[in-house]
Structures are given as C-alpha cells and as structure tokens.
C-alpha cells in the first residue's frame, strides 16, 4: 500500500496492493466501463439498465470535470469535500460527492483530511439508495478506510478522526 500525489501536494490517493491504479484512476476506469456499470445494475436488480449506465457515466464525467477544476482554479480543496457521517465506522467520512445531498444514487469518492488544503482519497463506491448492494460496498469501503487509517497511524499521522465526501457543488 502506498500514497501517491495526484495534484500539487494537495490531493493524494491511496494505491492499494494488488491494484494497477491508484484509487481515483481505478474507480474512474470502473465508472467509465459500460460492462462494469451494466453488470452492477443487473446485480442490484435495476430494471432500467441503459438509464442507470447513462446516469453513472454522466456522474463520472461530472467528477472528471471537478478534478480538472481543482487543478486549474484557486479554490481551497476543502470547498470540494463535505463531512459524511457513518455510524458503522464511528467517525465522520469526508467525501467527494456527485450531485446534491438529497440525491439518492450516484458516485462517491471518499477521502481523509490531512490538513485544511490536503486530502487523500481512500476509495469510493456507487451509492445505491436503499439497495442491498450498498451495504456490501460500504463494508468494503470501511475495510479500506480502516486499513488506510492504520497505515497513516503507523506512519505517525495521528488524530485522523474525520473522513470526507467529495461534493460537486461549491457552497
């Protein structure tokens, strides 16, 4: 496991063992893969396969635009992340979030805040409203978040008590 620098010593991402890409690139490869998205929809019993795939492809494009915006504007990274509470983990998640907070489905990127203008992406998932798959995906994310947290603690990075969710709209 390692942490890689995505942008200007501000945005980082975990690169987990056994993966070809860091978490941003890995997720973006999946979220732009029609087979991956369609299989996901099938597994979750979604009737409108085409619509689901098209919506998630659009969500992925929005996140791509957001990363591009981050690399070209002067906003603080904090403006792009919002706390997301997860009772299972017992601390707040911070995530890069697609869509308004009221939107049920969508893509989520999760990150740990290191400093006011420093975030490290730990993973992400397709958020599926009340679908059962959401729990499994979230479980996988929790495992990754915990391993990321341990990795940071071992490296002397302490007081990591909040995780963030990327949001696509500036407040």
């Amino acid at each position, binding site marked *: 496991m390692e942490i890689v*620098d995505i942008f200007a010593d501000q945005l980082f991402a975990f690169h987990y063992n056994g993966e070809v890409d860091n978490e*941003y690139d890995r997720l973006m490869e999946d979220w*732009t893969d029609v*087979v991956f998205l369609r299989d996901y929809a099938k597994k979750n019993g979604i009737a409108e396969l085409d619509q689901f795939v098209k919506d998630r492809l659009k969500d992925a*494009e929005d996140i791509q635009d957001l*990363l*591009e915006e981050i690399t070209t504007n002067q906003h603080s990274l904090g403006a792009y992340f919002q706390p997301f509470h997860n009772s299972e983990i017992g601390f707040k998640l911070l995530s890069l979030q697609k869509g308004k907070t009221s939107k049920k489905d969508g893509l989520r990127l999760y990150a740990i805040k290191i*400093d006011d203008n420093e975030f490290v992406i730990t993973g992400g998932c397709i958020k599926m409203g009340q679908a059962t798959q959401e729990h499994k995906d979230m479980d996988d994310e929790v495992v990754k978040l915990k391993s990321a947290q341990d990795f940071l603690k071992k490296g*002397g*990075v302490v007081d990591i008590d909040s995780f963030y969710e990327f949001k696509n709209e500036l407040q």
Partner: protein
Amino acid sequence: MTNKENFKALVSKETTNTVERNRARIKNRSRLKESQQIALKVLNKLDEPGWTQRRLAKEMGVSPQQITKIVKGKENLTLETQIKLQEILDIPILASYYDKMWEQIVSDFLVKDTKKYTAPKNPFLEKEDEILLPKMEIVMEYDASSETYEHYKIPA
C-alpha cells in the same frame, strides 16, 4: 515532526499521470460517449437468445478479446468495425441504418387510393345542387408515415 510532515514522508516519490489521464478523458468525451452508446446497444443485443460475445467475434472475424474491449465502451471504433456491428447485429449505429429504414417505411406504406371529390358547398347559392364545378375523381398517393397526400392526377 508534525502530522503534515509525517504524512509527506509516507507519500511515494513516484509521480502519477492521473491529472493527464483525467484531461484526456475530458478531451475525448464526445468520442467516448459514442463508444459507450454503441457498447450499450451491443450488450443489449447480446442479451438476446442465441447471441454470445464468442459468436459475435467469429462473425466479425476478430478475437474475443477485441469484443471485450468494444463492449467496455472505451475503444475508438473504426468505421469498418461500426459497419460490421450494425450489419451483423442489426442494430442502429450509423445514419445509414435509419436512411435504409426510412426508405423501407416509405415504400411499404405508399399506397394509391381513389377518392371521390365533391366540390364544397357554395354559400352564395341557395340550392345545394347548383354547384359550379362538376364532380370528378382524382388519384392521390397517400404516404401513411407522414399522413399526407403527396401527388394527384385526374384520371383520363
């Protein structure tokens, strides 16, 4: 060392090309969207009984790995590949598919019909039968798709 310094010490010295890859996706977005749309149509067709990726590969004369790439929706498909997909799977990909279909529709529904023409009632005449124009028959070609009469002629 501060938290921040400890964190920096954990960051790999390797550089990533994530921002460049992201930029390339944005730059190629229009093309990618087309590839994704085609991939969806292909996958939907392959869900129909009798179709498999292996059969498609065989009929197209390409490797199964090539089909795997196509259905991911990331390939920059050549015109030749698009034509093969359209013809073998009978799915709309190129404009020629709709052109052909439209020609088919027009020819299927173009019918000749004979209708009697009755001159409208003249409001200035008191009696209905005192119309100025004689009754006559005309032949009209009715296009059912556009619901219009396109041509007419007076029979000899």
